């Protein structure tokens, strides 16, 4: 019997199997941010175990609340900053160099096919776009990861999604993943790895694959995962060109990280996405999904473009294309948070920031920002936000607020009309 990519990664990283169905894996990366890591640090200090397993494998960023908004968030940043210095963690991204964790860490070349990655953040599944087993964990798992470089998982049962056909113009990875979550439900892949394959995935950029894998957790998935291919090599080439004599050689090395044709799956879903329309959520769960057409005309108060789901350069380019020469509705306010400084710089150079500003957007520094109502962009009771983020939970962006999840194209179109609207890029 063949193996899935996740099974292969487990096999190559297995340290111990203390019990049936408990796989303790060696970690290639432990990612940290200022919300879930400080308590792990203070607990290690209290236990007199203030050590790290390998400072070069730990990557750290302040991203959720940055710049600090008050004394408490300043302290969270300080704990992380002091700890990084104390342990010689070189890759610590402080304000000015910081961005949304799941955008900046791949951009810095920290993610590779076949890696195991944990982070105290549920959207760690994003990194599976590179053929990586990447799982969000709580602070205790993070703490043990920092200390010992291991984490325990159950056997990685895998659900395979074969995405056939081709997406129409104006339809994106975000629409595809919203559709999938709508099909299988918020509990549809709990404890499972979600493997995304098929011509739609092959045709996607790395940015789009990250969007796809980012929302695996919204169906309960442990990790999203795509097979590495030429695009993966191209994306990583500036970081790996010393290790391989050519891109072909790198591709060959990465090619082992794919599932065997006779691998066994918990379930296989095949979807032809050729007729998929732009999608949007309603209500308070990410599996409550309708087409934009069905939701058209619902008024919103705020537009938010950004986050680990859709704050990358590709997203900004698409939104700017919709916004170019247009103004946002007088009835809305709109916020753009480019996900990293590099994305921000590229957007400036390409003239995208000007398009957003001319349209009436507020452009913030790179941060998780409005997505979880922790720092900027909080909604008032009863307000509605059209958002490119990943969660529409009750109160997520502010107590009593409503969030509709959608693609950057739909969000931009919605900003112009002030109501949920299909973008001009989608011709139906």
């Amino acid at each position, binding site marked *: 019997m063949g193996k899935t990519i996740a099974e292969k990664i487990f096999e190559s990283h297995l340290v111990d199997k203390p019990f049936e169905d408990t796989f303790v894996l060696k970690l290639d990366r432990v990612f940290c941010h200022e919300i879930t890591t400080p308590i792990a640090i203070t607990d290690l200090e209290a236990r007199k175990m203030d050590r790290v397993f390998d400072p070069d494998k730990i990557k750290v960023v302040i991203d959720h609340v940055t710049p600090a908004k008050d004394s408490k968030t300043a302290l969270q940043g300080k704990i992380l900053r002091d700890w990084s210095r104390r342990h010689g963690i070189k890759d610590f991204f402080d304000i000015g160099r910081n961005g949304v964790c799941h955008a900046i860490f791949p951009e810095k070349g920290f993610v590779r096919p076949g890696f195991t990655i944990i982070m105290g953040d549920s959207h760690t599944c994003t990194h599976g776009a590179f053929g990586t087993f990447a799982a969000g964990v*709580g602070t205790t798992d993070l703490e043990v990861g920092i200390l*010992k470089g291991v984490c325990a998982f159950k056997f990685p049962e895998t659900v395979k999604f074969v995405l056939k056909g081709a997406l129409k113009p104006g339809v994106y990875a975000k629409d595809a993943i919203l559709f999938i979550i709508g099909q299988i439900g918020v*509990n549809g892949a709990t404890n499972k790895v979600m493997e995304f394959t098929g011509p739609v995935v092959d045709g996607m950029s790395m940015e789009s694959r990250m969007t796809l894998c980012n929302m695996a957790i919204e169906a309960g998935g442990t990790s999203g995962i795509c097979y590495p291919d030429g695009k993966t090599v191209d994306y990583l080439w500036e970081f790996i060109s010393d290790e391989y004599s050519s891109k072909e050689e790198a591709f060959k090395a990465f090619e082992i990280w794919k599932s065997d044709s006779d691998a066994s799956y918990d379930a296989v879903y095949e979807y032809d996405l050729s007729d998929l329309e732009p999608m949007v959520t309603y209500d*308070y769960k990410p599996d409550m999904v309708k087409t934009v057409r069905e939701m058209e005309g619902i008024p919103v108060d705020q537009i938010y473009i950004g986050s680990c789901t859709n704050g990358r350069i590709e997203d900004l380019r698409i939104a700017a294309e919709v916004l170019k020469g247009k103004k946002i509705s007088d009835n809305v306010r709109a916020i753009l948070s480019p996900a990293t400084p590099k994305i921000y710089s590229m957007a400036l150079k390409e003239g995208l920031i000007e398009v957003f500003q001319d349209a009436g957007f507020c452009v913030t520094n790179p941060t998780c920002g409005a997505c*979880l*109502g922790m720092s900027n962009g909080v909604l008032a009771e009863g307000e509605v936000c059209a958002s490119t983020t990943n969660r529409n939970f009750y109160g997520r962006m502010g107590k009593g607020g409503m969030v509709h999840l959608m693609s950057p194209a739909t969000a931009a179109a919605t900003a112009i009309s002030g109501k949920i609207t299909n973008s001009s890029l989608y011709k139906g």
Partner: protein
Amino acid sequence: MKEFKGKVLFLDRSDINTDEIIPAKYLTEITKEALKPYLLEDLKLPAFDSSRDLKDVRIVISRANFGCGSSREHAPWAFEVNGINVVIAENFARIFRQNMFNCGMCAIELKKDDIEKLFADYSSTGAEAEIDLNGNCIIIKNGGKSGKFSFEMSEYDKALVLAGGWVGFADKKY
């Protein structure tokens, strides 16, 4: 090992997420104790009032996919500092469930029928329950009624409960 018995609170809804258990705005706290007043503050459940209904509660019983959403361990911690060390549900989101055991707490899964029975027969005010880890069962009483419900707990999960959590377990072993 923590204590696993006492007054039961029934939360009659599926997909209760970690934003509802502890809203993100409180994640700026750096001690577990500071989370105490905010447990379930944003829970969307008719007639539930977190300032009134959590008094002396030790065990929570809910429906499917409990604890979905964010990885924040602040969710189990918010239960823990309120004296709640057990959540019983039809099933849990992976990270929440692991976080519970990693803290030496119990996230116990029961069959759908048993959850239905618990809600039907015991959910009026006054239910008390106890977790028997040796017998792998929950003993619940309300008024004159009492019942016993079996569950399965993996050796690993039980080892974490006995070790008081994953840090203690891993430190000895790895």
